[in-house]
């Protein structure tokens, strides 16, 4: 009997000691988006530095933030989007990055060096960025597509895919009406929702979806779709009849950055990992795999013309200046969500 109890006890002890062991030596706990890195890069980092990478994935900024709040010491490097970075800074969830240990962060493009979600550029290094725009079938559109108005045009009845995401879809409607994608004005948000409800009631919308859209567009299931630039590039690679445009009214430009949580157990290794991802050849590997835009000047130089001449991946500065970052909208989030519910259930 005693033997069994001892066995149980020692097993329990061993179990509780395991995480401590894992976090003791050369480990870095990375928390990134689903399918958002070239897996070879992880192996290369482990080989070059001897630091073991514990790689974990998430699919929503909101879920990721809950994880960081509830187990603050579990992650060393996290990849939140712009407005999530802003939120995490406000909640004191992040620690400043020691840029002396991340020399490759120098490669960051100038316009991304002091982004307004991290104004003093203390907490984050950009990882990937992109825009929101319209992916369209050039063989079936009637006339040029350069305005969000195309998505609300009745001649495309039943042929438009919208995004099943309150922020993105309401943001586009706001932009079309001449407001900011970050509007906190209840009347503006309501006007945007009414525009979307009208669009739905007229039968223009085919479906609200996120991940399915790109493959549907490749298969010719719709004429116009609201998409992220990376998804657009993926679809265009598979179907050359498709094209992507950031409408003239302006749009949302987003950045996914790399940050270190305030209570990270291995900040040194985290900095080493971030620095590694900022190395031009590594940033190139990731960019070519993920097919979003790279914030890394060195990587862009390596990719050369193939990248720089691609308007989708490398929009002109004019286009970028016409776009806005999303900002943390916590105090009016319930407005966006409630109006979005009305859009989704309009008949």
């Amino acid at each position, binding site marked *: *009997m005693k033997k069994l109890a001892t066995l149980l006890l020692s097993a329990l002890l061993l179990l509780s000691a395991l995480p401590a062991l894992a976090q003791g030596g050369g480990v870095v706990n990375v928390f990134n988006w689903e399918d958002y890195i070239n897996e070879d890069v992880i192996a290369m980092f482990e080989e070059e530095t001897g630091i073991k990478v514990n790689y974990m994935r998430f699919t929503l900024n909101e879920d990721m933030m809950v994880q960081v709040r509830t187990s603050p010491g579990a992650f060393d490097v996290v990849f939140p989007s712009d407005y999530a970075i802003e939120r995490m800074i406000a909640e004191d969830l992040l620690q400043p990055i020691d840029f002396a240990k991340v020399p490759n962060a120098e490669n960051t493009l100038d316009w991304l060096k002091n982004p307004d979600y991290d104004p003093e550029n203390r907490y984050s290094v950009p990882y990937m960025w992109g825009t929101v725009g319209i992916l369209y079938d050039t063989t079936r559109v009637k006339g040029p597509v350069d305005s969000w108005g195309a998505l609300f045009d009745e001649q495309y009845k*039943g042929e438009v895919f919208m995004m*099943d995401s309150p922020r993105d879809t309401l943001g586009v409607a706001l932009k079309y009406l001449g407001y900011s994608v970050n509007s906190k004005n209840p009347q503006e948000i309501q006007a945007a929702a009414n525009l979307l409800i009208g669009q739905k009631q007229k039968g223009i919308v085919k479906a609200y979806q996120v991940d399915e859209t790109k493959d549907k567009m490749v298969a010719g299931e719709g004429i116009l779709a609201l998409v992220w630039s990376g998804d657009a590039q993926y679809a265009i690679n598979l179907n050359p009849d498709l094209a992507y445009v950031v409408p003239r009214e302006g749009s949302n430009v987003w950045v996914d950055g790399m940050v270190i949580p305030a209570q990270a157990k291995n900040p040194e290794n985290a900095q080493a990992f971030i620095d590694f991802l900022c190395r031009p050849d590594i940033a190139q590997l990731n960019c070519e795999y993920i097919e979003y835009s790279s914030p890394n000047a060195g990587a862009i130089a390596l990719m050369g013309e193939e990248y720089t001449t691609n308007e989708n991946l490398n929009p002109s500065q004019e286009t970028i200046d016409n776009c806005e970052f999303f900002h943390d909208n916590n*105090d009016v989030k319930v407005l966006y*969500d409630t109006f979005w*519910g009305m859009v989704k*259930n309009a008949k």
Partner: protein
Amino acid sequence: MNGRMAFPPWATALMLLALAAFVVLVVLSIRRNRGFRRTLFSFPYSLWIVVFTIIPLLLIGYYAFTDRMGQFTLDNFKTFWDSNFEMNKQLTQLGFDPAALGSARGTVNVDTLVYSLWMALACTLICLLIGYPAALFMADRNFRLGSTLVILFIIPMWMNFLLRTIAWMSLLEDNGLINTLLKALGLPKAQLMYNSQAVLLGMVYNYLPFMVFPIYNSLSKQDRRLTEASMDLGANPALTFLKVTMPLSLPGVVSGITMVFMPSVTTFFIPRVLGGGNTEMFGDLIERTFLSADNWNVGSALSLIMMVLILLSLSLLRKVDPEGEGGSMI
């Protein structure tokens, strides 16, 4: 409004307590019996129930009756009745008069529930109309292929229901199999997907076996001599069916209705895939409230309301089939 809270500390404590109690119970029972005894076999399952059913239920109850700060409130249920409730509260807090938006009561949540109930009812009815004759056909003892048909009904269920639903897309799409066929025959293209009918089709397809099997089970268990006796006494086949076969199969029907109606009401994912997210069902609403709207409190209240509804309909059905005879299959 400080984002979502972590699990309340007592939930973690409860979880640890359950684990500790489990270990203690196992050790005690081994000591007392000087070895393993039968009661020991129930422990893994009891632990399972406690950790994965009872504690989560308590948590849902806790979240449903508290606000984000953990204070007791009934606001989450008011939000069910008036989907604009939370928004108006926040607007007032921001110093904006909600009346300026002209917003009366928001009916999104109630409408969604009503829509889900109608869809579930329609699905159950269609399943019954297709399922009963099918079960009758398969249970007929003069029909040799009956058991083969049963297997054929079961085979698709070996595959995950998500995959089966996604497979429907390639049939119903604009450039899908059916439309390609129509085009080849010179017929106009039909919009088969992204509407309520497609969702209903997906539901019937997925839940039909749950109707067929309980009915088949109760039909095939019936004593053949009863129908023979009925015929001997002069009843024609129709009368025999009405007076003997059908009443005896009622428990199976009740069980079938239960097993189709419950999952139908809580359907989610199918509306998103086949309905293109154009109309939400209650399950989708709960998912959106938890994830995208990031509101566990209202989400829990909605879940609680749904659970109560299901319990009510279950107890109603129990009245028809007090012995629960039909629930033997699956």
